């Protein structure tokens, strides 16, 4: 047993070439190549890869008079927390990653953060909106996207303009992210004068929403706010349509933002989604591509339009690059200091993080938009319907 073990240990040491050339910047991350988060994670990964390729084509990241080429090291975390810590340790210790991108989803990010904090490595979170992780005293964690508190704010404000005292049903997935979203949204709805007639969490693995839809019908709700991630959200949308829940307004998290949502056909029509970013967004970037340039490059590379996960993936890279160039160093502490001081706009929108010890790294600058699936020339596509300033089409209300 012992011999075998030593043999295996020895083999491991031999089999692991440790290399990190001076002019290479290694960024590590885990991806959910398998498991339930695979669609969203893939979109995020593609955004990051586009950034990497563009940077390398342009000669790399400039630090002083040196140019660093960017190299990614990635592993599959299977959408589960079990191996995230092992893999992030491996990324840091064995693969010598200088910077890290977070995995997809809040839970995995929280798990990975324990390791990155321990080694004092900067990790940019491009796929975890849950705000709680930032109240745990982490110093090297930076959130790129809006936190969960702000997800449904736009959806509620848009609804108020159409029906100031609408009866609202909250139906949401029982996971950390969705619960954090609804926790904040519930207060915003009450403060805004809406009436909450149903408040119902469902297990993320739910496939049969029949009983919930009966409850929605029984509650006479006009508007439905909630959802969770892709799988449950798409299933819910389809059954709302199949069982004709008489809703005038439906806003679901995450799922309708994916291009695949169109595969639901008529069930997708009219559904709104709070979005970190939309293709039509016209922010004036202080550095990096404009929205249109990003979309064009993305479509050329992947033959599919980007969704907001792709945009956050790219934005994470662009912000890291900017911070490194500002700091003039790849030292984690200096780059974090640069990020702390940053107050900038990219194609993805505004970026500014909280810097007090109790919330360090929490995104407070970025704003969300509300998009709706509408028909244009017979084709389903998303239009930005809120806020008014960013609008590309009027909100369709009521749905039917």
């Amino acid at each position, binding site marked *: 047993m012992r011999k075998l073990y030593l043999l295996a240990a020895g083999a491991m040491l031999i089999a692991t070439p440790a290399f990190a050339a001076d002019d290479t910047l290694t960024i590590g991350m885990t991806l959910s190549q398998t498991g339930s988060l695979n669609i969203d994670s893939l979109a995020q990964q593609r955004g990051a890869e586009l950034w990497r390729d563009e940077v390398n084509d342009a000669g790399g990241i400039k630090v002083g008079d040196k140019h660093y080429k960017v190299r990614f090291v990635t*592993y599959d975390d299977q959408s589960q927390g079990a191996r995230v810590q092992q893999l992030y340790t491996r990324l840091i210790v064995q693969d010598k990653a200088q910077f890290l991108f977070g995995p997809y989803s809040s839970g995995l990010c929280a798990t990975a953060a324990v390791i990155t904090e321990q080694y004092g490595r900067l990790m940019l979170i491009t796929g975890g909106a849950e705000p709680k992780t930032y109240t745990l005293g982490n110093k090297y964690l930076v959130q790129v996207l809006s936190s969960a508190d702000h997800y449904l704010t736009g959806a509620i404000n848009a609804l108020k303009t159409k029906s100031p005292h609408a009866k609202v049903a909250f139906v949401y997935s029982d996971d950390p992210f969705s619960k954090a979203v609804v926790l904040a949204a519930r207060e915003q709805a009450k403060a805004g004068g809406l009436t909450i007639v149903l408040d119902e969490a469902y297990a993320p693995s739910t496939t049969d929403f029949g009983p919930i839809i009966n409850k929605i019908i029984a509650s006479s709700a006009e508007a439905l706010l909630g959802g969770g991630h892709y799988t449950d959200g798409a299933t819910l949308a389809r059954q709302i349509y199949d069982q004709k829940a008489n809703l005038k307004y439906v806003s679901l998290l995450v799922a309708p933002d994916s291009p695949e949502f169109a595969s639901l056909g008529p069930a997708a029509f009219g559904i709104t989604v709070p979005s970190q970013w939309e293709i039509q967004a016209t922010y004036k970037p202080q550095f990096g591509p404009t929205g249109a340039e990003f979309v064009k490059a993305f479509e050329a590379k992947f033959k599919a339009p980007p969704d907001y996960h792709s945009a956050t993936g790219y934005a994470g890279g662009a912000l890291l690059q900017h911070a490194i160039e500002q700091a003039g160093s790849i030292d984690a502490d200096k780059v974090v200091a640069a990020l702390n001081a940053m107050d900038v706009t990219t194609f993805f929108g505004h970026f500014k993080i909280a810097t007090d010890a109790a919330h360090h790294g929490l995104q407070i600058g970025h704003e969300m938009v509300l998009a709706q699936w509408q028909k244009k020339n017979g084709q389903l596509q998303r239009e930005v319907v809120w806020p008014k300033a960013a609008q590309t089409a009027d909100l369709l209300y009521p749905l039917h």
Partner: protein
Amino acid sequence: MKTDNTGSMPGDRRAPMLRRPFFWIIALVIVAFAIVPAVGNNVELRESLLLATVYITLASNLNLMLGYAGYINFGSIVFFGLGGYISVYLISAEGWPLAAAEFAAGAAVSLLALFFGLGILRLRGAFFALATIGINEGVEAFVSNFEPWGGSAGLYLSTTIFAPLGGPMRALWIIYFLLVAVMGASLYLSYAVKTSKFGLGLMAIGQNEDAAGVLGVPAPLYKAIAYSLSAFLPALAGGLYFFKGAFIQPPDAFDLSLSTEAMVIVMLGGRGTITGAAIGAYLYEELRGFLLTSQSFSNFQLVISGVLLLVIVLFVPGGLMGWIYGRWPRVKQVLE
């Protein structure tokens, strides 16, 4: 010493513990686990071995029910998950020190297992196996709705939680050594049970429960004790594991696939053998780690595990140790 005969039982069960070779083999394994990564501060190796200690703990304790008494427990992971929840909760909400929280978790889970055990151990064969799935899923569904434990959002620990252990760097080493200790305790427990009258009773139950009853083995009591005993150390391991992760959430805590992996491990190594469960766990963890991190196999890891298991079940039903015993019967006198 040419053949194995009943006169010289493996390792001579009547010899005092300290004079049996297997006792020292276990000790060597524990020392190796503790020392090898510590030499040169090899953190990457530690993380990999840490999962191996968890697998070995789960597999050896599962072996008590599965290998000795012949009861298929699909839901053994429920002990691990509950242990994790109880200790993380006591540490985060009640401010208990790690050691106290660990033992409270272990004791509570063992008691709960005794309670569940008295109910479901009346069932036999597939009925019992199905009930254990039900218990795991039921507990997961309950915890997902149990607000004091954070419901489905789970519990988070602040990184400052590691301060009493000397900061995260040191804390992770301490947790690793504790897990090695839990693993060692599991191996010794398996050994002690196997060489005791109690263990003989369990084996008799595994052969033929009715006959065992006739021969005077108090089967219901023995089964309940084994079930409860097999809960204690996994609960400790769960507590340490989730304390290290600083985060616990129902799908991770009650992951049924980890239970089934533990069964695969026991089969891989050889049912009812201690060495088999340990080597099986170690090999399995290294294999999964390798498949997961190699780009070409990452997509096919499940397929490979599945084919491997099928081949073992079909052609080498005795597992690794069964095969070794078959080829070199003398090994049986040293390795249990």
